């Protein structure tokens, strides 16, 4: 039985709203009394994931599930998919446009930063279908 389960839609290219879902999740976790160091790691990983959904995907959602001993964040999008995951994971590699860089993103640190901040990180992607990232955190 999970303590909390929720999902948050994320629209493609909506820079004004980008980060709102992560902010909501952060406040929910603080209210639940989750350890602040864990909240910080979840917030960073979630925000990176949300920014990725906004700048790279055709839209998607973030699913949050909190159990007694672990927290799971899943992002699921509807494409375009990542052709080469090891390359996408490499620090400094980015396919972001100049517009995205003007916003302060697209340094090629997102996926590796998600992996670094989570206790478990799994990514699956199929070109033309979509990408699913699962991040686990111990509580």
């Amino acid at each position, binding site marked *: 039985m999970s303590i909390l389960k929720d999902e948050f839609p994320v629209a493609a290219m909506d820079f004004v709203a980008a980060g709102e879902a992560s902010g909501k999740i952060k406040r929910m976790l603080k209210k639940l009394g989750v350890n602040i160091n864990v909240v910080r790691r979840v917030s960073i990983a979630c925000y990176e994931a949300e920014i990725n959904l906004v700048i790279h995907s055709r839209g998607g959602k973030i699913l949050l599930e909190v159990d007694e001993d672990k927290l799971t964040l899943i992002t699921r999008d509807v494409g375009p998919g990542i052709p080469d995951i090891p390359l996408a994971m490499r620090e400094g590699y980015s396919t972001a446009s100049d517009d995205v860089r003007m916003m302060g993103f697209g*340094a090629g640190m997102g996926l590796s930063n998600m992996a670094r901040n989570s206790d478990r990180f799994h990514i699956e992607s199929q070109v033309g279908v979509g990408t699913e990232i699962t991040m686990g955190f111990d509580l």
Partner: protein
Amino acid sequence: MKIREILRVLDARLVWGEPLLEEEVATACASDMMSDVLAFSKEHTILLTGLINPQVLRTADMLDIRCVVFVRGKQPNQEIVDLAREYDVAILSSGWTLYEASGKLYESGLKVE
């Protein structure tokens, strides 16, 4: 170092954040790239940046950053001020460049832990 002192060292203008002036900060992070701030910043840091958009405040919120200094004389618009108030983040505007502002704070004792 208190935010009040940062305001003085950087000859900055307090755009919003009167209730936060006595908050203590341990270090600073200077970058126009929010991706790098997310990947490299430490706890209890302030953020110095020449980038001015709502994502700067959202990044600050995610990292529990209590003070953002906009350098090169940049003035935040009302949308940014509203977000600062909502997230409880002090915002300062300083005429110094990113390099100069960083140097002044470092010289005043705000080092990297």
